[in-house]
């Protein structure tokens, strides 16, 4: 396996070459929080959180209302029991030349996680999964979106979380 792509360097060079003057300042912290598991996974309730811009097709098969797309930097909820064939992603910021987003479980693994529940590996899934729009503002993510996800996780008595960025 070759080395991983160095995205920070690659995107900086790419956008400078496109005429952007100021490189994006990626979030960086010296310290990392850490919380130990409080109980075995087989007794734990799990929440799935993703930036994959997953949406629910309505009954007629069309996408969500266009006005939803006006929201930027907001957390939203996808019911965990949404049939998989009604889920899709509107995300465009992925490697469109190399792959596709036609299989929801390749970036929003809700069905695979429900299988882990059936197998007894985890106790349950929270009734709500969480979408977080790719915020352009780290401040907004920290002050608005992350607290909203935490609040909903606490309401759902979540023990552990799996996060999947696209």
């Amino acid at each position, binding site marked *: 396996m070759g080395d991983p792509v160095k995205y920070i360097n690659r995107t900086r060079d*790419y956008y400078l070459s496109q005429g952007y003057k100021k490189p994006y300042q990626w*979030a960086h912290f010296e310290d990392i929080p850490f919380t130990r598991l409080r109980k075995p996974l087989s007794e734990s309730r799990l929440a799935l959180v993703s930036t994959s811009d997953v949406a629910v097709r309505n009954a007629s098969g069309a996408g969500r209302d266009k006005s939803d797309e006006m929201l930027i930097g907001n957390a939203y909820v996808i019911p965990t029991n949404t049939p998989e064939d009604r889920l899709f992603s509107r995300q465009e910021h992925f490697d469109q030349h190399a*792959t596709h987003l036609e299989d929801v479980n390749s970036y929003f693994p809700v069905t695979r996680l429900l299988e882990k529940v059936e197998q007894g590996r985890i106790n349950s899934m929270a009734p709500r999964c969480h979408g977080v729009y790719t915020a352009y503002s780290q401040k907004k993510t920290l002050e608005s979106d992350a607290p909203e996800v935490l609040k909903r996780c606490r309401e759902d008595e979540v023990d552990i979380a799996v996060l999947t960025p696209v």
Partner: protein
Amino acid sequence: MSLVARYLEANGIPTVMIATARDIVEYCGVPRLVFVDFPLGNPCGVPFNQDMQSSILELALGLLESADEAGTTVTAPYHWPEGEKWKELIFTQEQPFLEGDAYDNWMAAKERYRRQKQQSDS
């Protein structure tokens, strides 16, 4: 996304992230990371490969159990089935990241964000 993981973790919910952009996630710093060396878009496994997707999730669940310090990364033992050419091409002049509608949508989103920011600043 890394910021959300850090926030949940700091508030008592153990987290594990499954991601493809290793350097960005590790530069931010998250408690636990399963790194999958695949193109942006499929961190949880090759599309429609259910066995692989299940195994990658098992790596994530196992990491929740085994990690005893912050900043622990495990690498999923998989190769992208169509080779590694994508690594050379992503974000290059030769292969623009966003084209056509996707580029226009990105510009429009940036403009909406700029307007929202102006409103909240004023």
